[in-house]
């Protein structure tokens, strides 16, 4: 019986950066000179020798791309990369958003906050290939933080900003309530963004009996179901997730309330 190496997606792979796109003042997209069979919601573990390894949600698989905000030591190191430099990663890893049960003509609602728009835009493009229509509600703090709107494969886009500098002033939950209040019907809802927002969205979808999947973030280390750092209640986020149904997520005591830091210590979510 062959037991190793069992799966190429678990091995470190190295490719050149083919193209870098500036999305806004702090976010860049890195396209690699390679493709693989990843799906929206899956992630790769990017390794920068001497710096570390972190999970990044896929923005596309053909070519492989990730969109990264410069917010810390690791993401700053990635932002220093130039075209033709090398990127190493393991992946695709984790569960993808599921649209296999949907049919041509179905409508889905995508709800994203911050750079949670990345996997949702990828999902909208994949859905379009199946003839599924998407409406995206994108939330941001201010106009400069709204990215990726041209990447949704022509989906209908509703923007909310905290300061009203673009789109509707308010948050995405206000926009979700409004769109449901107007009687619009959706066959499924998908979300990626701040966890307290997703918690509220999950409750709304359960009340309305709409199927809903959420992209939940936890502190991941190994990415392969071993180290347990990313535990959310009894589940291991890197392998059992990061996509969970609203029903599953609402059963987690930690969901919307707390997560674990690098040591495994409980930390309250804000």
């Amino acid at each position, binding site marked *: 019986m062959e037991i190793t190496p069992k799966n190429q997606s678990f091995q470190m792979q190295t490719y050149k950066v083919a193209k870098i796109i500036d999305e806004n003042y702090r976010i860049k997209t890195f396209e690699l000179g390679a493709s693989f069979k990843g799906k929206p919601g899956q992630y790769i573990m990017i390794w920068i020798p001497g710096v570390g390894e972190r999970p990044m949600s896929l923005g596309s698989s053909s070519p492989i791309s990730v969109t990264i905000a410069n917010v810390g030591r690791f993401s700053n190191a990635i932002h220093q990369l130039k075209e033709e430099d090398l990127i190493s990663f393991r992946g695709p890893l984790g569960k993808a958003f599921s649209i296999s049960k949907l049919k041509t003509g179905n409508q889905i609602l995508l709800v994203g906050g911050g750079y949670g728009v990345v996997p949702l835009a990828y999902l909208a493009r994949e859905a379009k290939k199946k003839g599924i229509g998407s409406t995206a509600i994108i939330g941001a703090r201010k106009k400069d933080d709204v990215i990726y709107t041209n990447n949704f494969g022509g989906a209908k886009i509703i923007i909310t900003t905290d300061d009203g500098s673009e789109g509707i002033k308010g948050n995405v939950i206000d926009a979700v309530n409004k769109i449901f209040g107007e009687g619009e019907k959706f066959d499924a809802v998908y979300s990626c963004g701040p966890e307290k927002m997703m918690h509220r969205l999950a409750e709304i979808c359960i009340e309305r009996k709409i199927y809903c999947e959420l992209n939940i973030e936890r502190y991941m280390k190994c990415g392969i179901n*071993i180290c347990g750092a990313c535990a959310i209640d009894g589940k291991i986020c890197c392998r059992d997730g990061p996509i969970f149904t609203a029903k599953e997520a609402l059963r987690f005591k930690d969901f919307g309330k707390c997560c674990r830091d690098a040591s*495994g210590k409980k930390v309250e979510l804000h």
Partner: protein
Amino acid sequence: MLETEFLGLKMKNPLFLASGIQGVTKANLEEVCKFAGAVICKSLTLETRKGHETPIMVETNCGFLNAVGYSNPGIDAGLEEFFGWKKKEPLILSITARTVTEYETLAEKISHKIKDGMRIDAFEVVLSCPHTPEYGLMAGQQTPETASEIVKAIKKHVSTLPLILKISPGIPGEVEVAKAVEHAGANAIDVGNTIGPGMVIDIERHARLPGFGMGGLSGPAMRPIAIRCVYDIYNAVKIPIIGCGGITYGKDAIEFMQAGASVVAIGTAVYYRGTNVFSKIAKEMEKWLHGHNYSSVKEIVGLAHK
């Protein structure tokens, strides 16, 4: 057929979740109890530790190198996390420390929690991590003198709780360590930890893996070394042995038990075959035992010595 007893603890099968595999949260350990006969939590140290830089694991032929570096929230938060264990499967608390004094402090804290009503079924003392500075092998703890000093110091504070001592196989003098800790009052030996340390170099990046630059080897690659170590220690001591190292299929667990292990622990195979690997291995063991006319798994312990 697989029911057994270890240190007076009843188990539905002889399969432990090894320490450091998942086991960060109580809820996660409860989930693993759907499959495993007993669980060992991730090792706790006196203070909070973030652990080594990622990548913490790298796959190699027939195994993994890992250098997690004892990430854990510290003994106080850890004892709080695992307080209130209600499963029928035993919970083993794993601890490790830099010095004898630190071990004593850990033991005192555990003793207080037990008086507060905390259920811990046994505890494991790890002297054998090959890749964390100041701990285990890197601190030279796996010697007969230091190991027995540590066991005696802990036993002063927690005398009633069964103490399992975890060593790394393949280190010269391991049999002497086993004899010394048995004499010092240890109740069982876990053979054992990962071996090494080893190193992988990513040839595209000319860089070392895992992130720490080296790590302990686990998985089928190390199994013959662990089997030999279990065999030798079984000859030398009377206390029971947990066999661990590359158990992936039922036949591997049976091999360890024939070498002298009363029970076995499983880690890397969770990667190869999923968290329910314990149920898969249990089924494979039952099939083997049945096919060879054994009515209980207890009958095969030490068979290779007869």
